């Protein structure tokens, strides 16, 4: 990571101001993989940008970055490229811009910590209304680094309706509660499928699990996102659905979600004062 732009050197005994120009930082997390978390993070970021906000998207999944594919971007020459990159009006940073897609990142925890810390502290994010952080699944090194380093305004937990996903969502939620990061709520992805032939709604992975989970854990239920083949097709083509089909049912669901998330972040930040330091 020595090729990354160098920022202010760490000063021992002084707190470094992290993301000074960012108004709200929101983490998108899930207890387990495969729930569409990166898809949700990418489309949420685009939906916030569509509401005329300045938005950044940080891919904190060091081992399996997927943001570059979703935005139709590839590895870049780090010697000549200035990070963050920009596409569809969003500032982007991902390990996938640095490491070739077929190259495995085989790192122990401290290296993951270093990479995520550098993404947060040494990338000139500039003035942003929202920085969306796409976390890897689980409750490991990247999550801990983000919660310790970034001034998170809040976090959203993505789940699918099955019990196995909900059990892990609870673990993710507990993690944020333990580190005093406000949980904005739970998003149920792949919630239902609307048949394009008959228009009937099918609850493929059952129904209402996310809402029940939110009720049980005492956090808001932020909404359901449909299982839409177009979402994955657009993701693979490098133009997320909010960008390519903003008026589709999925595009509209994301716009509604972005409004809810933006409102929650505004409400939470009213009560989130900065902690005092002792010099």
């Amino acid at each position, binding site marked *: 990571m020595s090729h990354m732009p160098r920022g202010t050197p760490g000063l021992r*005994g002084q707190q470094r101001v992290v993301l000074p120009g960012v108004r709200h930082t929101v983490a998108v997390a899930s207890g387990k993989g495969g729930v569409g978390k990166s898809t949700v993070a990418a489309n949420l970021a685009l939906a916030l940008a569509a509401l005329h906000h300045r938005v950044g998207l940080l891919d904190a999944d060091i081992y399996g970055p997927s943001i570059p594919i979703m935005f139709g971007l590839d590895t870049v020459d780090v010697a000549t490229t200035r990070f963050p990159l920009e596409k569809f009006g969003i500032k982007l940073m991902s390990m996938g811009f640095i490491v070739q897609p077929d190259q495995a990142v085989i790192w122990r925890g401290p290296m993951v910590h270093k990479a995520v810390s550098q993404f947060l502290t040494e990338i000139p994010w500039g003035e942003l209304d929202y920085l969306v952080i796409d976390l890897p699944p689980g409750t490991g090194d990247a999550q801990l680094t983000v*919660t310790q380093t970034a*001034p*998170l305004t809040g976090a959203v937990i993505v789940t699918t309706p099955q019990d196995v996903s909900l059990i892990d969502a609870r673990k993710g939620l507990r993690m944020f509660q*333990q580190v005093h990061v406000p949980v904005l709520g739970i998003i149920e992805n792949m919630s239902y499928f609307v048949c394009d032939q008959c228009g009937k709604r099918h609850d493929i992975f059952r129904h209402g699990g996310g809402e029940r989970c939110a009720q049980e854990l005492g956090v808001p239920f932020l909404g359901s996102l449909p299982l839409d083949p177009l979402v994955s097709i657009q993701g693979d083509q490098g133009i997320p659905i909010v960008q390519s089909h903003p008026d589709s049912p999925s595009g509209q669901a994301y716009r509604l979600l972005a409004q809810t998330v933006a409102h929650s972040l505004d409400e939470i930040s009213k009560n989130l004062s900065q902690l*005092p330091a*002792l010099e």
Partner: protein
Amino acid sequence: MRPVKLRRQGEDQLVIEWSDGHVSVYHWRTLRAACPCATCREEREKPVDPLRVLSAQEVAALAAGPPRALSMTPVGHYAYQIHWSDGHATGIYTFETLRNLCECDACRRLREQAR
């Protein structure tokens, strides 16, 4: 429950004012002795070796006197990191840990009653 003010009291004490109105007092040496970092925890769990020979660094550290707290900075929304004069700074003191270590008279009494 979160700290609203931190201040030094004399040479050897820290005072934390909490959002619930409680005022905690600590000796810095108490906080250092309870450092929650993995290395310090492991050291504390080892049985005492009366025949242990101190290393040159340990002798130098003892000669320099007890380490002083240079600063105390927030970690995320849930903890503090203390930077000590001997370079140690890996301990993350959560709010819960700090409340449990409070040395004010009321907290001491509560702990004694609980024993």
